[in-house]
């Protein structure tokens, strides 16, 4: 094994260990943060870099170590970046919905309940999108 080979091994190992640590910290955040909205922050962020680090490590391992073409990992991170905000958004919307429907029984968390943005409109979870605005669906 050449000196360069060892250097690559070290880089790949560091990437994978860093990635795994971030994934672990993200999961720990889900356990220890106080309420649902705070817990959402762990998995949407700390795990993106966690997975990113592991995927880059895997890519380097196959491209440099094994001499194979390996770019699937880029697609995985692309899909992760597209889906993570959407699932976080859906969970947040369900939480907003519960805050309203369950009234005082719902746990609002330290941030309290969100105030309506203006006199003219409320959030889209609470009020149908206005017809000729950007929030409107094509059918409304």
């Amino acid at each position, binding site marked *: 094994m050449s000196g360069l080979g060892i250097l690559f091994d070290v880089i790949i190992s560091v990437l994978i260990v860093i990635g795994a640590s971030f994934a672990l910290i993200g999961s720990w955040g889900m356990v220890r943060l106080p309420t649902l909205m705070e817990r959402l922050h762990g998995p949407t962020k700390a795990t993106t870099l966690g997975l990113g680090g592991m995927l880059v490590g895997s890519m380097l391992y196959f491209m440099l170590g094994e001499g194979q073409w390996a770019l699937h990992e880029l697609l995985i991170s692309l899909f992760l970046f597209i889906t993570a905000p959407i699932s976080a958004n859906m969970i*947040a919307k369900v939480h907003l919905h519960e805050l309203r429907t369950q009234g005082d029984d719902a746990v609002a968390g330290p941030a309290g309940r969100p105030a309506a943005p203006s006199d003219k409109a409320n959030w889209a979870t609470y009020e149908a999108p206005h017809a000729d605005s950007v929030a409107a669906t094509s059918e409304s």
Partner: protein
Amino acid sequence: MRRLIPHPGLSVLLVIIWLLMANEPTVGGLLVGIVIGILLPIFTAPFWPGRPDVNYRAGVAYLLLVLWDIVVANFEIAWIILFRRNRDLRPAWLSIPMELDTPEAITVLAGTISLTPGTVSSDVSACGNYLLVHALDAPDPEAEIARIKARYEARLKRVFK
């Protein structure tokens, strides 16, 4: 030309993604990718009426900025998770007034906010002018709103014209 390739950016993206999926750089794969890159935008055109023009140069610059911010965000959130006590956290709801006026631009802004430091976008207002964002630690909500508007919204206005 405009009718054959209604959305050149989407076509190029489709070819690249096809090649990544095939995971092998071959001429055959490239040809199939080009066919898909031409056919798909033609068939999906009815789904994006009135789409804004995209400034690709500004778009790539924006993408790099966001990637960098994602890395920084991860370290900040990891720090908060490991070393901040729950009672020191200042979570807050921010309602961000937006000047962006296309669904595409607002979607990208919401996605960016969810992926970057300590903020998750939660909802859009019924009038489409405000974004509801939950911040994990925002002692000064007004400053946080100003930061998001200056850093991301101002750049997005240049990407989607």
